[in-house]
């Protein structure tokens, strides 16, 4: 593992120094880890309070097995779909002479800027029964298009807005591997295809798996899309269960536990496929020669164009159409709503960054088992869906901290738990990139390890820290389920406003905030891409 080698080198660089900062750092990191895993512990406690027998009874009574099946079908379909769309796009834009490759690279990554729930309701608006597009098709004689609701619609929308994960990771893997390997295979009399199969595929597989994992986790945790598309999966059911009077006690907790089991299985599967091999981040110096597409250029262009039309053209077109049609209603939008979004996002970004520093610093400095545990624990939020975190925090606050119930601090805490991994990942990777020799030099010049950190490491990692904060800020802006479940009374954000007017069917009023959110997501893309460059 390249990362652990670097960790070891870093560690050897500070060996012989005083252990005090290490210890206090360990305590800090441990405290942060305990803090953010609190909701998960609360949920486990709550579930265990109901008792195994009760939950097992519910399992058979409530049809939650159907929900499990639905969720699994969705994850499998979305992951496959993302691979089928993302990998060809990556290969086309990296390894072929596709006309306009640079433009297609940007276009293929851009659907990430459309929050999937906004994508979902623009799709319902366009393709739903009596939707704008269905009406247009009826004019030309197409009466029945397949229903957009249910598994097919949910999977379609999720694939269209999450395939860029696979595209980006595959692209990174393709860019980083050593092109001379392919040339070597070619000189050994392999055809291009055989070389691709025997050299390229094994090299990019971890990248594909990493992207697939992101897509799978997204599909499992996404709440907005299945809710809009009326498909009964865990997240949607957990939310709906709160809404029906007389739901059996413990049912939401049961669903949450099942969902967590599925998430764990997905994570385990990925770690087997990826086999801990992070070679896709190591870089070769040479690119292989480009594959000439010839006449295949046309179907390739049609493929790229088709994906772009569906994943960018439809949502942006529908939003523009609402905007234009809404007329003056567009301006009834209350700016305090945007201001509220801004406030919680800044708070979440600040808190997540402050908490990420000790965890990431400790993980980068120490290769102890404990540092690994604290590091992993902060990743809880990454795997635990927002609905589950919100449910856990509702329980936690009504039982143990009533003064925090439905307050802004609790909402911000939910965001921090959910998005801390982004900050930690960003900070840690930039810490790892600091040449240990620099720290060593500072130490030999008489700096303490904290001093060296402050004067050498911190300025060097500042861009990574800023990028992590920006990511947390932007993802908080568009977070849906925790926002809906934990917002204080009278506290409306862009997201809760969109959800509200969508429910009321007044799409026009959603145009401006939805466009703002797309803009916000676009900015987060810029940060991710800039960081990719920075890390390279």
């Amino acid at each position, binding site marked *: 593992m390249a990362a652990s080698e670097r960790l070891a080198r870093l560690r050897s660089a500070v060996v012989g120094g005083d252990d005090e900062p290490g210890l206090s750092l360990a305590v800090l990191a441990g405290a942060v880890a305990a803090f953010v895993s609190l909701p998960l512990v609360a949920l486990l406690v709550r579930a265990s309070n109901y008792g195994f027998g009760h939950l097992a009874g519910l399992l058979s009574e409530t049809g939650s097995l159907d929900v499990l099946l639905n969720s699994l079908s969705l994850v499998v379909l979305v992951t496959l779909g993302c691979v089928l769309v993302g990998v060809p796009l990556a290969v086309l834009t990296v390894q072929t002479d596709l006309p306009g490759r640079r433009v297609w690279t940007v276009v293929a990554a851009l659907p990430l800027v459309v929050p999937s729930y906004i994508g979902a309701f623009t799709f319902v608006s366009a393709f739903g029964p009596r939707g704008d597009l269905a009406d247009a098709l009826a004019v030309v004689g197409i009466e029945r298009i397949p229903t957009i609701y249910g598994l097919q619609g949910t999977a379609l929308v999720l694939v269209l807005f999450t395939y860029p994960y696979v595209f980006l990771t595959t692209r990174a893997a393709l860019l980083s591997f050593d092109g001379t390997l392919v040339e070597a295979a070619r000189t050994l009399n392999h055809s291009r295809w055989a070389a691709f199969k025997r050299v390229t595929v094994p090299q990019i597989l971890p990248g594909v798996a990493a992207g697939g994992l992101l897509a799978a986790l997204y599909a499992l945790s996404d709440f907005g899309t299945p809710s809009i598309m009326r498909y009964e999966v865990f997240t949607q059911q957990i939310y709906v269960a709160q809404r029906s009077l007389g739901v059996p006690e413990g049912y939401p907790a049961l669903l949450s536990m099942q969902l967590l089991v599925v998430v764990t299985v997905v994570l385990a599967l990925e770690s087997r496929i990826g086999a801990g091999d992070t070679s896709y981040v190591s870089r070769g110096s040479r690119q292989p020669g480009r594959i000439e597409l010839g006449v295949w250029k046309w179907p390739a262009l049609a493929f790229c164009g088709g994906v772009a039309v569906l994943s960018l053209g439809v949502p942006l077109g529908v939003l523009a159409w609402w905007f234009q049609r809404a007329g003056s209603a567009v301006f009834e939008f209350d700016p305090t709503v945007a201001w509220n979004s801004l406030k919680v996002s800044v708070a979440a970004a600040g808190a997540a960054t402050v908490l990420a520093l000790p965890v990431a610093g400790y993980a980068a400095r120490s290769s102890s088992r404990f540092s690994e545990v604290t590091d992993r624990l902060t990743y809880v939020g990454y795997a635990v869906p927002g609905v589950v975190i919100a449910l856990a925090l509702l329980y936690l606050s*009504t039982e143990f901290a009533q003064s925090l119930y439905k307050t802004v601090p609790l909402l911000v805490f939910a965001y921090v738990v959910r998005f801390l991994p982004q900050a930690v990942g960003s900070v840690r990777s930039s810490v790892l990139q600091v040449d240990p020799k620099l720290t060593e030099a500072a130490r030999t010049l008489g700096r303490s390890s904290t001093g060296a950190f402050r004067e050498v490491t911190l300025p060097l990692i500042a861009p990574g820290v800023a990028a992590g904060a920006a990511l947390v800020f932007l993802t908080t802006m568009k977070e849906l389920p925790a926002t809906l479940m934990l917002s204080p009374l009278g506290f409306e954000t862009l997201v809760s406003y969109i959800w509200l007017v969508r429910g009321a069917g007044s799409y026009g009023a959603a145009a401006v905030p939805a466009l703002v959110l797309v803009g916000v997501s676009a900015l987060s893309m810029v940060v991710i891409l800039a960081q990719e460059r920075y890390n390279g």
Partner: protein
Amino acid sequence: MSERSGPSRRRFLAAAGAATTTGLAGCSGILGTGSESGGGTPGIGDFRGSGAIVEDRPAPGGTSIEDLPDLEGELAIYLGGGEGGRYTTLIDLLDRYYDGFEVSQQTQPSSQLANIIVDEYDSGTTQADLFWSVDAGSLAYVSDKGATVGLSSDATSMVADDRFATDQWVGVAGRSRAVPYNTNQFDASDIPTSIDALATRDRFQGSLGWAPTYGAFHGFVTAMRQLRGEDGTREWLNAMLDQNPARYDSEYATVKQGITNGEVGAGPTNHYYPMLVFAQRPDVPLDLAFTENDAGALVNTAGASVLDGASDPELADLFVRHLLSAEAQEFLATRGFAFPMIDGVEPVGPLPTIEELSPPDLDLQSLSDVQPTIELLKDVGILS
């Protein structure tokens, strides 16, 4: 009921015809201050809706806001449902009416809020002063769990019909299931007073429309389940399927696209969907009838209650009285076509008064039990 709505509708059409010649600018210039952009106190013209359908209404009777004590202080409202922002508009009007009165609110589906309110009551974390819900079932659920405090008799006595006033919650705006129909295809006498006849009469074969994915329809089927049980409901649904009804995505679409355009002749919907179509196009061949004593005549009401743990229960109670004021009731009747709850404000256009309806005897709280309804609809093959 249908016998009665025919002539009244003709009266209404005549009035509408006269009104269109005088323009559709609304009545804010005559009756109220029309202070949409200005900062003045809202008048009746601001509360009343506009358009031909409400043009020649008399000034509303009942208790005017002017005769009620001033609202003063901060009020937190859990708003269940919200009718596409209409209730928020009413809250804004009342907010504007008084200088020292501030409202904060949170809108979510009413049954979800009912659960939240009960959870909050149990854990001592009550957030809101007032629960304003689109359905009586959620209100009843919350008060049954003890999460409300009683209303003053000043508030409850304003409601004309005892069915919609308990000491824990009052109705503020009624609605009913109805059978809108196309007057080119059916006469008033063709529309039965029993929902069963819709499903069994050959007359309706191939000429019915419905919106089985729609929440209001699920409420109606849930009512039927409570009234005649699972098997009886299944029988009705199967009989309806044999009539080969056209499916629409919403009940509004059922009325607007289906019945008004003559794609179908009739169908069960909430009463205000045909009213919305009337309001936009008074000349359409559309009328509505009501069945009697079955799920097809289900009457529900939006209402309000004061929550236990409210920081200012007196203010919340006074707000409920404002919702029952002449101006607010006129607002709900003319903008949402609801059945008003007080004497002195009449329902709009061709609608009968709520006392003239014959709803089934049903505990409205049982309407929240929707999940078995969904299962049943799937089982019968209506939902996938």
